[in-house]
């Protein structure tokens, strides 16, 4: 029997992991954004060989499911770190690597490709006029970047970045596979304890929905604020 009270009880349990889930998602968003920016920059330089390597890498990341990448990193990252540290004579036990680190590394790399696309699109929308105006007034390169380019590019990139944030929050449900407890994982645990899986997953769905709804609402407000003056 479906029991509404159990849904509430599960909700309370699940809400406890919301901050951790959001924090993970935020770290991944920031890292993937930075990585994406670096990718965009390197690609804009058009260096032969490096450009081809990045193209292959991007196509690989795009063409592989997140689950597979997650397992790949889960099994390779500890070995890689252990090998790297051993070069400096630092002992490292591959089994001691925090699973959260695995999740952060995997998703940051996965989503950097998408962030790179977002940044490229936003940069493309930037008018040369705006830069020349700043230059003609004597802004240095850094000042032009800080006062003109970044604010305008951020405004353009914001909706898509926000979208990416929601996607990351939802994609984190895969983290359970490598033992990181996010919203979905918590629902499974709660369900397993009480054998009320349906109630637990209903609660999880409600939590996801509430988070996404709230974030969308907030970001629309911010976006409207930033886009004042845009037609």
């Amino acid at each position, binding site marked *: 029997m479906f029991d509404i009270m159990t849904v509430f009880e599960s909700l309370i349990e699940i809400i406890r992991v919301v901050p951790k889930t959001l924090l993970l998602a935020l770290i991944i968003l920031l890292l993937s954004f930075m990585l994406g920016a670096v990718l965009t920059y390197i690609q804009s330089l058009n260096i032969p060989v490096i450009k081809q390597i990045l193209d292959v890498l991007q196509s690989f990341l795009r063409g592989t499911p997140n689950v597979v990448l997650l397992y790949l990193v889960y099994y390779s990252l500890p070995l890689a770190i252990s090998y790297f540290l051993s070069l400096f004579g630092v002992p490292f036990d591959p089994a001691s690597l925090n699973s959260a680190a695995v999740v952060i590394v995997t998703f940051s790399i996965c989503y950097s490709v998408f962030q790179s696309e977002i940044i490229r699109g936003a940069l493309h929308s930037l008018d040369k006029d705006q830069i020349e105006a700043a230059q003609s007034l004597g*802004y240095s390169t850094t000042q032009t970047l800080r006062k003109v380019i970044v604010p305008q590019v951020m405004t353009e990139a914001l909706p898509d970045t926000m979208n990416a944030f929601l996607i990351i929050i939802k994609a984190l449900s895969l983290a359970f596979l490598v033992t990181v407890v996010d919203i979905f994982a918590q629902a499974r645990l709660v369900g397993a304890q009480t054998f009320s899986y349906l109630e637990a997953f209903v609660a999880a769905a409600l939590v996801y929905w509430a988070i996404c709804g709230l974030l969308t609402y907030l970001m629309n407000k911010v976006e409207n604020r930033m886009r004042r*003056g845009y037609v």
Partner: protein
Amino acid sequence: MLSLRNLKLSFDGSQVLDDINLDVKKGEVVTLIGPSGTGKTSLLRCINLLERPDSGFISLGGLDYDYSRISKKEALNLRRKTAMVFQQYNLFKNKTAIENVMDAQMVVQKKSRKEAYEKSMQELKRVGLEAKVDAYPSQLSGGQQQRVSIARALAVEPEVILFDEPTSALDPELVGEVLKSIEEVAKSGMTIMLVTHEMSFARDISDKIVFMDKGRIAESGTPEEIFSQSTNTRTQQFLNKFYTAVH
């Protein structure tokens, strides 16, 4: 106050500006006229280094630079002594009118917000836009945007303001208000270099007219000398074409 010597500029092997020599005195209004594609705009853009000349010398307000080996820092120094009013206004689209005027004062000149605000209000009043200070460029007409851009140029108190076809992108009925603002600026004693196709305005406002043709200065002189007494055939051809088009 501003002088250019042997300025040369080329794009992809074609000579855009060839051996330009020009002197502008303090408070003078110098207008560049001539057929399209003769390098008038490029010449203005060389002065504030939006284009980089191949060679030549510039001196402006105490700075003397050799274009062929000008450093980033020196380019910045030149730009901080000039301001430009663009054909397409080039206002920062994410900032209001007053923020547009304030920004450079705070970022470049490191003025306090209050100081910059007061100066900006004063300059926006001068161009008759005190009622529009909080409007975004997209909420203003072309003429109003161009006047904000004039206020922005005035606010940094440059040695010279470079006007690059300031009315060419405007609807005909909006040209008048912008010309009036430029006239105000000229009367205030600001040194001006202007590129325009408004011949009668050029004639009225200028102390000196420079006629350019094919990347060179073909002739220069007072408005009277150029418009009425010129013996240069290219100048006459150009002006005749203009008069036939207008009348």
